[in-house]
């Protein structure tokens, strides 16, 4: 008995290792001619969902964008809207939109990509009981409230009323390739929103068995899944024969799933990945030095701000907010705390966006004299009161927030206190309930490439993410004016004026914009980064040899 077990175990391990030795080694690229071909191996975290209606996190979107295609796509450099599956997206009043589709596109299972495919997907996402994350994005479509009625007492014991309709009244099919979308209010930026994966179509077979479709997606894009989703391990995509549009460059895209970015970076260093779309913050400088020309850096569109609780008396005077903003030297914090991974913000709209301008906020560069003067004009800081600075725990925000506090203290002599003990969920709930007692850190990323995404949701009266409680009639009117402008370009001047109001009022203190940092391997021939949808794996070509 003794010893036998060990012998068996050792023998078993040895055999198994031999077996892998034989089957392994298929890692090399095959070599067709031309630019396309090869296997692109990319970093990914575990996606939440692979359905257009469910996936709203970065790892999901990266996969969904290759499996599915929508009405429009975005130009890689200018982020301008280009037609993809749509023939046209038109409106005369910016409220009723008519969408015509190109014919001939199908899903991988042969179902046609017609008007029904889009209406089905949008209605499925919006219907409350389906609990789909991207239901959020259907909020502008008329009739959304009927399919997802609000719970009268939030999380309380009363149950939410049953939806009174299963489909949104704003969506109407005209013929097989035409449908109309009626919005609650005019919105000139509507065409920019529908390139988001939440608006991609779904096959009937997918909606019928959403769980199966999540494991083995039925897409309509240039790639289809090879096998099924290997949770926490890998997702492999191959070319889809049913795709009629411009084909993708690599023959195969392999998403390797990592639990954290450090493990992903190690795998990249060991040559196991071709693209790493983000970098571990601590290795940023090292990557810059090591990969130089194979590192892609560009200003991003993720906004960090220190919100001002306008519902607290202390922060009601805009001169106080201006003075606080004037005492912060953003660049020095970026250099000291973040190794230069951010760009100081001087406006409210991402610098990569059409219509964005530098220097909208005149109080966003350090000027201690002016700060002191403004504070004095406002009657000074309440004696004995501390400035409280809030951030969520465990995400490293306390470091830079402390630097902000120190700079304010040095400039204006206001003592500060950090409140950084709330976990993210509770922190967000505090924000929703407007219970902050001082400046609070929050961020924002755009939902679509249109200036409005940086303005209305954050500062519009009563808007969802308006955590400052800011309300300004002139601002709201300018937003409405932009929303009903006759085209995307025509809307920009109104939005710019609205942004100017923010630059004076400072409902939040702009801090910085992120920088995109991605690295790619020597196998990559041309690296393509889309200004809206980030690394575009289907467009990245590999060296063929």
């Amino acid at each position, binding site marked *: *008995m*003794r010893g036998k077990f*060990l012998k068996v*175990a*050792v023998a078993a*391990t040895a055999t*198994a*290792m031999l*077996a*892998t*030795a034989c089957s*392994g*080694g298929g*890692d090399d690229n095959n070599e067709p001619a031309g630019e396309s071909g090869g296997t692109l191996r990319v970093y990914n975290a575990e996606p*939440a*969902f692979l359905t257009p209606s469910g996936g709203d996190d970065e790892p999901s979107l990266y996969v969904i964008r290759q499996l599915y295609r929508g009405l429009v796509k975005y130009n890689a450099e200018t982020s301008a809207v280009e037609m993809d599956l749509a023939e046209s997206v038109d409106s005369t009043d910016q409220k009723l939109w008519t969408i015509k589709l190109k014919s001939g596109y199908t899903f991988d299972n042969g179902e046609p990509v017609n008007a029904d495919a889009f209406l089905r997907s949008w209605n499925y996402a919006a219907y*409350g009981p*389906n*609990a789909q*994350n991207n*239901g*959020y994005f259907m*909020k502008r479509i008329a009739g959304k409230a009927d399919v*997802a009625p*609000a*719970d009268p007492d*939030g*999380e309380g*014991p009363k149950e*939410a009323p049953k939806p009174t309709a299963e489909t949104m009244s704003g969506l109407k099919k005209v013929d097989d390739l035409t449908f109309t979308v009626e919005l609650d209010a005019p919105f000139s930026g509507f065409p920019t929103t529908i390139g988001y994966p939440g608006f991609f179509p779904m096959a009937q077979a997918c909606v019928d068995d959403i769980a199966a479709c999540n494991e083995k997606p039925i897409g309509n894009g240039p790639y289809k899944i090879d096998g099924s989703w*290997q*949770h*926490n*391990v*890998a997702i492999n995509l191959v070319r889809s024969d049913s795709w009629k549009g411009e084909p993708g460059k690599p023959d195969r895209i392999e998403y390797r*799933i*990592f*639990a954290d970015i450090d*493990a992903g970076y*190690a*795998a990249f260093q*060991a*040559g*196991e990945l071709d693209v790493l779309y983000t970098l571990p913050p601590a290795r940023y400088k090292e990557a810059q030095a090591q990969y130089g020309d194979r590192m892609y850096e560009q200003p991003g569109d993720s906004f960090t701000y220190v919100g001002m609780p306008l519902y607290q008396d202390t922060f009601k005077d805009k001169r106080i907010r201006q003075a606080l903003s004037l005492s912060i030297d953003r660049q020095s914090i970026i250099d000291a705390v973040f190794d230069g991974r951010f760009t100081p913000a001087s406006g409210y709209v991402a610098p990569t966006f059409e219509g964005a301008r530098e220097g909208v906020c005149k109080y966003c560069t350090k000027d201690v004299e002016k700060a002191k003067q403004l504070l004095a004009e406002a009657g000074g800081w309440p004696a004995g009161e501390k400035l409280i600075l809030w951030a969520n725990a465990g995400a490293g925000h306390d470091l830079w927030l402390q630097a902000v506090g120190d700079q304010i203290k040095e400039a204006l002599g206001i003592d500060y206190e950090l409140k950084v003990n*709330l*976990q993210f*969920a*509770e922190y*967000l*709930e505090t*924000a*929703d309930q407007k219970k902050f007692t001082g400046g609070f850190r*929050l*961020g*924002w990323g755009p*939902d679509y490439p249109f200036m409005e995404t940086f303005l209305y*949701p954050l500062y519009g009266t009563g808007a*969802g*993410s308006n*955590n400052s409680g800011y309300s300004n009639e002139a601002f709201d009117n300018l937003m409405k004016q932009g929303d009903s402008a006759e085209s995307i370009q025509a809307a920009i001047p109104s939005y710019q004026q609205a942004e100017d109001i923010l630059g004076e009022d400072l409902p939040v203190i702009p801090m910085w914009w992120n920088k995109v940092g991605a690295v790619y391997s020597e196998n990559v021939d041309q690296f393509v980064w889309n200004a809206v949808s980030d690394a575009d794996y289907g467009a990245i070509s590999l060296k063929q040899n």
Partner: protein
Amino acid sequence: MGRYVIRRLLQFIPTVLGTMFLLHYMTSLAVQFSGNPVRALFGDRTPDPALLAAITERLGYADPCLDKRGDPCLWREAESGSGWLGTGYEPGLFFDRLGNIFFHFDFGINLRQREVTDLVADAIPFTLKLLVIAIVFEAVVGIAAGVLAGLRGGSFTDYAVKISTVFVISVPIFVLGVVVREFVGVKFGNVLRDQDWIPDVISVGVFTPGFKPDYPLASLVIPGMVLGALSLATTARLTRTSIMENIRADYVRTAKAKGLTNKRVIGVHTLRNSLIPVITFLGVDIGAAMAGAVVTETIFNVPGIGRLVTMAARSGESSVVVGVVTMLVLVVLVANLLVDLLYAVLDPRIRYE
């Protein structure tokens, strides 16, 4: 023997219930004090309340007791009728969970609406492979080193084993893991990968900074060795001391005096008796290795149980933490029972009644 096993199995019940209550209470407290984890899913975008409520309900965070700080969620006020035994209360979230787990084998779903049982089924093969590699590594190398050192106390081998084991014991596993990943997996691996004559299974498979689907076993060798390293040191030291003690025992002297070969004296008489404490340790160590796997799997990106627990704890997925840790507790209990039974096989003096 049979009665002993039954008694031990009955002892499992309070242990498992106790752990489950602790886990349940801790994860409930986490939700009560740090907020609804579903809200965090949306980040900066404030979801509309209907959507938030629908998703909260579906994921099982809607129980009202999760809003009352400190409430152990044992009982709730009966919605209708007089409740359980006329007390006006009915069994709460904890009993719902117990009922689901033990009567319906339903461990709940995670924040991504996947069944916990599916998650575990996906993850278990990786963890088992890793554990087998770790235990085999620490048993074979640890015992061999311990025997070599023990037989020749004070020799060079003895000192080499003593010093190297102290070194390994004093390095925490998360440091060892990261250092091995960076230097063995990345740096040394890159040197190997530049040499064409080395087969891919070695240069790409074994010397890798993490798990690879293309080399499902080869890429687990180094993570397994890291996981086993800590216990390897303890195993070696235990064996060494035990051998040194037994080699001077009366029965070994008798065996030698009888004229038995050295091989038989060491192999059968000394080693068999010296291994009792080592086996105990290895058995208990399966539990510790499971805990170590939480760290090792995260560092080496092994999609096993340990990484699952790490990710669930980070995002506050109560159902996953409760379900997986309950299963781990069962594994440890069963392993301990098996170790106790093995004693009787190894040592004829031990009898269970």
